[in-house]
């Protein structure tokens, strides 16, 4: 167990060391040393710039995540249980899955203006088909034997949903949530870069114009850390909780 804890620490240290060596050798503003980057990170946090922009991005993330997950789950469950409709709309899903994120973003801004609604809509539109496909898979795989049992014992709609259907869909929902957060993060920055005046994407755009690599890397570190925290503190425990009954 002690070894399992040591390994990630060692690999992170090795990564930092390599970065330090490479930056010292190159001695260029295009690759600042870890020390410089952490200094910028500290200044940005203290000045309140980073928390402000990170907060704006996180708020957008939360809203679009909740919208995409709930809408996607509803549609996914529906398609999973109605085979004919599913086959009819399957092509639509394939098309939406393959539209490049940039296209949806541009179209949303063109159609709805450079507004918050357009930004959220663009993110949701990108994530939605993904959730639908994953949840649909779960709804197709529902155990008929258990559904019959629930019917024979007169469980009723609510009990059946809560105790028979939900536990079977949960792993699929968690799967969709985990890939979802990673995907939304990446898209949301492009959305902000193209049409918002705050958020991580906007800030990175500014740094890019000033060739401020240290700033870009500092924001990246903050960003990766937050995602890892969400994953470790929220999604993993939820996943473990859902699997507690397995042998």
């Amino acid at each position, binding site marked *: 167990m002690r070894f399992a804890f040591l390994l990630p620490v060692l690999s992170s240290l090795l990564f930092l060391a390599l970065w330090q060596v490479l930056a010292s050798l190159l001695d260029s503003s295009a690759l600042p040393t870890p020390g410089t980057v952490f200094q910028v990170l500290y200044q940005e946090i203290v000045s309140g710039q980073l928390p402000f922009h990170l907060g704006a991005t996180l708020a957008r993330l939360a809203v679009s995540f909740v919208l995409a997950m709930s809408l996607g789950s509803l549609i996914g469950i529906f398609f999973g249980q109605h085979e004919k409709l599913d086959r009819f709309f399957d092509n639509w899903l394939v098309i939406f899955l393959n539209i490049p994120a940039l296209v949806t973003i541009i179209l949303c801004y063109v159609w709805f203006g450079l507004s918050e609604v357009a930004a959220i809509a663009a993110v949701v539109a990108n994530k939605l088909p993904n959730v639908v496909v994953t949840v649909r898979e779960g709804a197709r795989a529902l155990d008929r034997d258990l559904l*019959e049992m629930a019917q*024979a*014992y007169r469980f009723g709609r609510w009990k059946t949903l809560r105790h028979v259907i939900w536990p079977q869909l949960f792993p699929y929902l968690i799967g969709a949530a985990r890939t979802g957060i990673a995907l939304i993060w990446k898209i949301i920055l492009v959305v902000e870069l193209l049409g918002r005046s705050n958020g991580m994407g906007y800030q990175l755009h500014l740094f890019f114009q000033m060739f401020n690599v240290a700033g870009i890397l500092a924001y990246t570190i903050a960003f990766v850390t937050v995602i890892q925290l969400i994953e470790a503190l929220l999604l993993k425990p939820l996943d473990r909780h859902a699997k507690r009954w397995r042998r």
Partner: protein
Amino acid sequence: MTRIVIDIRKKAYPAKHGSGEHIAIQDLRIELRAGEFVCLVGPSGCGKTTLLNLIAGLDTHFDGGIDTDETGKPFRIAYMFQNPRLLPWRTVRENIDLALPKGQDGKAVDHLLEVMGLSQSQSQYPERLSLGMSRRVALVRAFAIEPTLLLMDEPFVSLDAPTARRVRQLLIRVWQERPHTVLFVTHDLREAISLADRLIFLSPSPTTLLHQVSIDIPRPSREDEAVIEAFRNQLISGHPEISALL
């Protein structure tokens, strides 16, 4: 007292490409007296499970009806399936409590778990139980709702002989504590003779009633395999059409 009349005029599966309409059950009428233990015996694939699904209301596409002269108390059906069908993400106790009708307390469940030797396993998840234990949990669930009619679909199949015999004894014990009508499907004639008040023989599909026999062996003597065997031999020699089924 309650009498239950099962009257299936016709149950058919619609024609699929290539094959015509398949008639599973035709003109089958069974009357069950209150508290009677009836075994349905017939070859595999003769529509016994279909019949139980119709009675349980899982399949409503058929001509006919299930009637009862029950008044006052609710008509309640419990169904013990061929496999235990427990929710793997709920504990043993939760699985049973979920099936209980509203307002029923857990005293009966405590007692049943005790009799079945499951009190220690209440908080376990079903995946950690042996098949024999899972079957007993399913049995407790079926009895706990205090049904008017208990349907059992070959519930002891694929258990080894000693385990099956033990669970059968437990079944009879809890049933005698609170008798209700039981409809038990099996293709094992010895099992049927050791359990039932009455045997009903069904034909291969389209299923219809072939023959019925009352069993008057007193319950205590049914422990004796020789008695069961003698009854079976007598039955088969008297009715050659039955031996053709088995």
